C-alpha cells in the first residue's frame, strides 16, 4: 500500500484500476517476444492495423454525421497514418529483427514521430503529436486493448498522469473513468474546474509518483482529503466502500432539497445558478434546482476539436442550452481561452507569462473574426430564451467599450441579414482583475450586470499562478485582500443599481457562500453538484448570521485567521454540515 497526499480539487471518492497516461501517451513497457513468435506477432500487428482501420472508418462516418466533414477529415488523415508504408516497415523491423512486442513497436515508433513533431515547435505541429497519440491508442486497443484491459473488468478506471491538459480532460470517457490524479496542478486550475463539472473526484499536485505504479493496480482517489491510495489493503477498501454508501445516501437527501426555495431562515432569497462547461450539464442544473445558468463556459467547443468551430457549431450548442433551460437565464461568457486553456492555437508562439498575456477578452479582441463568429451564434440563439452575454477578464474601460462596439456591429450585421435579434440583450462583464474593481465607478454605468470571477481575482490579486504547484498553497480566496475587493465590488454594484453575482469557485463551498451572502451577494453561481450543499447551508442560517460573519471576517489581517474564524463559526451555525465536510 502506498499513500500519497496531494491537493483535493474535485470532491468524491473513486475506486478503480489505474490507467496511466503519461506525456508520451499510454505507457507501454518495453517487452520482447520469443524469436519463434515473430511471425505470429507480425500477423497480430497486421490484424490490428485492419481492425483499427475499420474502427477509424466508423469514427469517421459517425463524426462526419455528427460534427461535420472537417472533423471527419481528421479521421481520414488518421487512417492514412495507419496505412503509411514507412510506419509499417519500421514496426515490422522492430518485431522481426529485434523481437519486440507489437505494442512496443507501435508505441516507440509513434512516440518518436510525436516527439519530432513537438520539437518542430509550432502549435500546429504539436497537434500532429496529439493526432499520433490518437492513432496509437486506436491501434493498441485493436491489439487486444492495452487501455481497455487496464480499465478492468468492471470498466472503472482511475486516470493517473503527469498533467491532464484541458482538452484531454474534455475528451475523457465519462463512462469508464471514475476519477483522476495528477503529479502537478493546483486548485482553481482549469483541469480542476472540468473535473468538478464532470463530477469526477480528482486529486492534483501529488508530486512524482507515476514511476511507482503499474497499470491496472487498485487505487482509491479521495477527492475530499486530497489523498490517493495505491494498492490499498482490503480493510481500507472496505472502509472506503462503506463511506461511499454513506455519501450516496446523503446525496439522495440533498437532492430532496431541489424544489425547496434557496432562502435563509428569515426569508432572504438567494438565486442559485449553475456553472456549466458542456451542454449536457443542463440536465444536472435542472436536477439540482438551479434557477439558471450563471456561467456557461464556451471553451469546450475549441478544446475538443482541432479546427476552429464554425458559427453553426457554436449556435447548435448555445441553442441547445438556452432552449433546454426553458426561459431561465443563461449567462454566456465569451471565449476565455488562453493561458492554460489553449485548444487549437490562433497563435503559435510561446508566452513567458501566459496568464498575463494574450488571453480571454484580449485574445477575442485581437481575433475579431473568431469573436464575431461566437457573438453571432450567441445572438442567434438568444431568441430561444433568456440569453445574456458576458465578457471575461475586462481590465480597462477601453476593452469593455471595444467589446461592446464589436457586439453592436454584429447586431447590425444580423439585422441587415434579417436574422431576428431580441430587442434587448443583457450585457455584462466579469470582475476578475483588481484594476477592474478599482475602476468600477466607470465600468458599472456601461453594463447590465457584473459577475465576480473569484478564481482569477485571487490569482491576480495575490500574484499566484494557480496551476503552479510550488505556490498553489498561497492561493486562497480567504485572503483579506481578496475579501476586501469582493466587498468593494458588491458595494459599488449596489450603488450603481447593477446586478452582481459571484461565479468563481468560492460560491461552491457552503462556508464561502455564506460569507458572500454576508457581503450582500444575492446571486451565486456554482457547479451543479455543489448547489444542494450551498442551499442546505443557506436554509439553516439567518441573514444576520451571514452579515455578522462577513463583517468580522473583514477585520482580520491574514488568511489563516479568516479561515480559522470561519471554520469555527461554520461549525457553530451548521454542526451537521461541518462534520465530514
Amino acid at each position, binding site marked *: 500500500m502506498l499513500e500519497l497526499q496531494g491537493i483535493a480539487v474535485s470532491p468524491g471518492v473513486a475506486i478503480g484500476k489505474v490507467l496511466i497516461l503519461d506525456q508520451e501517451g499510454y505507457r507501454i513497457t518495453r517487452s520482447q517476444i520469443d524469436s519463434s513468435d515473430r511471425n505470429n506477432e507480425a500477423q497480430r500487428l497486421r490484424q490490428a492495423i485492419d481492425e483499427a482501420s475499420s474502427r477509424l472508418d466508423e469514427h469517421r462516418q459517425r463524426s462526419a454525421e455528427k460534427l461535420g466533414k472537417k472533423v471527419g477529415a481528421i479521421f481520414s488523415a488518421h487512417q492514412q497514418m495507419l496505412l503509411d508504408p514507412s510506419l509499417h516497415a519500421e514496426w515490422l523491423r522492430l518485431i522481426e529483427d529485434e523481437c519486440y512486442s507489437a505494442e512496443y513497436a507501435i508505441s516507440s515508433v509513434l512516440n518518436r514521430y510525436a516527439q519530432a513533431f513537438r520539437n*518542430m515547435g509550432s502549435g500546429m*505541429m504539436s497537434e500532429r503529436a496529439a493526432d499520433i497519440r490518437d492513432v496509437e491508442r486506436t491501434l493498441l486497443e485493436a491489439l487486444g486493448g492495452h487501455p481497455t484491459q487496464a480499465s478492468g473488468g468492471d470498466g472503472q478506471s482511475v486516470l493517473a498522469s503527469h498533467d491532464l491538459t484541458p482538452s484531454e480532460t474534455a475528451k475523457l470517457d465519462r463512462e469508464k473513468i471514475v476519477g483522476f490524479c495528477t503529479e502537478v496542478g493546483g486548485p482553481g486550475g482549469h483541469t480542476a474546474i472540468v473535473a468538478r463539472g464532470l463530477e469526477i473526484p480528482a486529486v492534483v499536485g501529488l508530486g512524482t509518483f507515476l514511476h511507482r505504479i503499474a497499470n491496472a493496480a487498485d487505487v482509491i482517489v479521495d477527492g475530499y482529503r486530497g489523498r490517493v491510495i495505491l494498492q490499498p489493503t482490503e480493510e481500507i477498501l472496505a472502509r472506503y466502500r462503506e463511506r461511499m454508501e454513506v455519501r450516496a445516501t446523503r446525496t439522495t437527501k440533498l437532492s430532496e432539497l431541489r424544489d425547496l426555495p434557496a432562502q435563509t431562515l428569515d426569508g432572504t432569497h438567494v438565486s442559485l445558478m449553475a456553472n456549466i462547461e458542456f451542454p449536457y450539464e443542463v440536465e444536472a442544473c435542472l436536477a439540482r434546482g438551479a434557477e439558471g445558468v450563471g456561467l456557461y463556459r464556451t471553451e469546450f467547443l475549441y478544446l475538443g476539436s482541432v479546427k476552429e468551430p464554425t458559427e453553426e457549431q457554436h449556435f447548435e450548442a448555445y441553442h441547445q442550452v438556452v432552449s433546454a433551460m426553458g426561459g431561465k437565464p443563461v449567462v454566456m461568457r465569451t471565449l476565455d481561452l488562453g493561458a492554460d486553456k489553449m485548444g487549437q492555437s490562433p497563435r503559435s508562439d510561446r508566452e513567458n507569462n501566459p496568464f498575463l498575456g494574450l488571453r480571454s477578452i484580449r485574445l477575442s479582441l485581437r481575433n475579431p473574426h473568431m469573436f464575431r463568429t461566437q457573438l453571432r451564434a450567441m445572438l442567434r440563439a438568444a431568441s430561444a430564451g433568456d440569453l445574456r452575454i458576458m465578457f471575461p477578464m475586462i481590465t480597462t474601460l477601453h476593452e469593455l467599450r471595444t467589446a461592446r462596439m464589436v457586439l453592436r456591429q454584429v447586431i447590425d450585421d444580423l439585422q441587415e441579414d434579417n436574422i431576428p435579434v431580441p430587442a434587448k440583450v443583457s450585457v455584462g462583464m466579469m470582475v476578475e482583475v483588481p484594476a477592474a474593481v478599482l475602476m468600477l465607478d466607470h465600468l458599472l454605468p456601461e453594463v447590465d450586470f457584473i459577475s465576480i470571477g473569484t478564481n482569477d481575482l485571487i490569482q491576480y490579486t495575490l500574484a499566484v499562478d494557480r496551476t503552479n504547484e510550488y505556490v498553489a498553497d498561497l492561493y486562497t480566496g480567504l485572503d483579506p485582500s481578496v475579501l476586501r475587493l469582493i466587498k468593494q465590488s458588491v458595494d459599488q454594484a449596489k450603488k450603481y443599481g447593477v446586478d452582481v453575482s459571484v461565479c468563481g469557485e468560492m460560491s461552491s463551498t457552503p462556508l464561502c457562500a455564506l460569507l458572500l451572502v454576508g457581503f450582500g451577494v444575492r446571486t451565486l453561481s456554482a457547479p451543479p453538484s455543489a448547489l444542494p450543499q450551498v442551499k442546505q447551508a443557506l436554509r439553516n442560517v439567518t441573514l444576520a448570521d451571514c452579515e455578522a460573519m462577513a463583517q468580522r471576517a473583514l477585520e482580520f489581517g491574514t488568511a489563516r485567521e479568516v479561515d480559522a474564524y470561519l471554520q469555527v463559526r461554520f461549525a457553530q451555525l451548521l454542526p451537521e454540515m461541518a462534520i465530514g465536510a
Partner: protein
Amino acid sequence: MRPADLLVRAAGRFQSQIEIQKDGHSVDCKSIMGILTLGAAQGVSLTLSATGLDAEEALTCLAELFADGFNESDSEVA
C-alpha cells in the same frame, strides 16, 4: 493535415516511386508521416520527382492538386 492526406491518397494511385523534397530533404510522397515531418507551410517551395512507368502522369496530377490549393483555402499543408 487534410492537404497531406489528399496528397498521399493521390500519390497512392500511381505505380511510380514519388518523392517530395524541401530544403534538400526528401521523403516518400506515399507516406503521410514523411510529408508531415517536412513541416511545410503554405508558401514554402517544394520539389516533386517521380520515377516509374506512370511518372509523368503522376507529376501532372499532383501538380494540379497543388495548383488547386487542395480545393480549400486552408493555410496549412502539413
